């Protein structure tokens, strides 16, 4: 059994990097009540890949961008992140903007893939292809995740303050627009790269479920980060192993373990309250 799992060791390491990065940022995603921003950005990223495949199929190079779908996905995801970062005081409510972006990105992705000459099945965007992660992919994922996580560790109090009470932060001289944009760009960066391998559902899972487990049982921000990270890594290892041993789709298996861990966290919460 172990041998079978070790055959996919590189893929497991990649999944762990994605889990670590997404669950850390997921703490803010959950606390700021922007969980559907995660879903919308993942969907926008998948539409970016579909756009690259479609343009490539009809012979448009776009300065080489269409040869590297991740590059185009990154550009459209960061553009989407910037739009969400600035959607606080508009006439259209922020959740409506997110919903519209999600629906349009999902539809655009499906339409573009349907007409792409060398497109992959659309399922790949929803379910991802975790097992296909190579060692090089893992290095790339780590090279993206490490600076993002370091930035979040160094500027923890800045990200916390502008998330918790931006008006007061503004009165103390914080450039709230800058920090908010910085936060969304780190989120967009992580999602754009994680999406290539994990798919919309698994990225959404890593952003939300571990952080919710943390929120249920932790009594401090540090505790919430710790629980979220441990839950996401545990779900990755167990879900990955179960999928290999029982020949299950990897993404949904990881999500199922995340759900079980969330249930355990909820039971702990009930026990804490008694």
């Amino acid at each position: 059994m172990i041998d079978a799992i070790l055959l996919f060791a590189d893929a497991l390491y990649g999944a762990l990097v994605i889990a670590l990065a997404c669950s850390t940022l997921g703490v803010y995603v959950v606390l700021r009540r922007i969980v559907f921003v995660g879903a919308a950005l993942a969907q926008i990223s998948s539409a970016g890949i579909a756009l690259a495949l479609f343009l490539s199929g009809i012979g448009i190079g776009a300065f080489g961008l269409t040869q590297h779908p991740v590059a185009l996905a990154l550009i459209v995801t960061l553009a989407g992140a910037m739009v969400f970062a600035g959607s606080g005081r508009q006439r259209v409510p922020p959740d409506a903007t997110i919903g519209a972006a999600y629906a349009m990105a999902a539809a655009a992705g499906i339409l573009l893939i349907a007409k792409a000459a060398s497109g992959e099945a659309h399922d790949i965007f929803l379910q991802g292809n975790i097992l296909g992660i190579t060692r090089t992919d893992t290095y790339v994922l780590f090279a993206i995740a490490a600076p993002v996580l370091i930035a979040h560790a160094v500027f923890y109090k800045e990200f916390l303050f502008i998330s918790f009470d931006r008006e007061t932060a503004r009165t103390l001289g914080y450039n709230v627009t800058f920090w908010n944009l910085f936060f969304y760009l780190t989120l967009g960066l992580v999602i754009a790269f994680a999406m290539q391998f994990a798919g919309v559902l698994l990225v959404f899972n890593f952003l939300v479920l571990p952080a919710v487990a943390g929120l249920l049982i932790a009594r401090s921000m540090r505790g919430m980060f710790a629980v979220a990270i441990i839950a996401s890594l545990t779900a990755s290892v167990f879900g990955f192993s179960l999928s290999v041993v029982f020949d299950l789709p990897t993404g949904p298996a990881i999500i199922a373990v995340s759900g079980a861990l969330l249930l355990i966290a909820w039971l702990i919460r009930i026990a804490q309250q008694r």
Partner: protein
Amino acid sequence: MSALVTFDRASLGYGRRAVLSNLSFEIREGDFLGLVGPNGSGKTTILRAILGALQPIAGSVTRAEGLRFGYVPQRDQVDYGYPLSVVDVVLMGRYDRIGLGKRPSKADRELACDALEHVGIRDLSERPLANLSGGQKQRTLIARALVGDPNVLILDEPTNGMDLVSMTQILGLVRELHERDGLTVLMVSHALNEVANYVERIALVADGKVHIGSTDEIMSEETLSNMYGIPVEVSSFNGLRIVVARRAGANTDLHD
């Protein structure tokens, strides 16, 4: 007393649309000023201009050099879902002094505890913010504003949604901070009756204008009737002033 914030023929608004025009008044050192007006009158617009978050369309709003605000937002503006202790929240008032990318020191933590002592809830310092009562949350936010050692304490609707006891305690605490520590205080509220018995001056906002004066000047029936556009009666009960809208044929018998 020197002026800390000066409005000089300032017009305030969003885009090109002026919400308030030609405002000229000062917030002076040692002031205890109530910024009062009905909902939608433009109090928040003035507040944003005072804090520097909104630039005037015309005229000027100037702040004294080195001026530091201690801002207490409306309670419902703060998200109590975060797993933060009371002292964690108070420490935020020192974040800008601590510096970019640095963590609060033991000394910062002690200052936060002192601020909590100042508002009477030091014993709650490690308690989760979410578990506090409305009055305790408000005291936490006041402690956060005080820990940064401000020149001006600004409270935005500090008694919104509070019961009578909590409201009286919070307003009493604010008055104590003004009288005991000589702190300049600006209290923003839609509730004239609550504020009028605590502050020393009132800036009444209505119909795009600001009428500023001592509490005695503003709390006259003539001034209030003109500003609100309806007949108003000012009565007193046990030394407290109460403003009521006059109804035709009604007898308001509250005089001492």
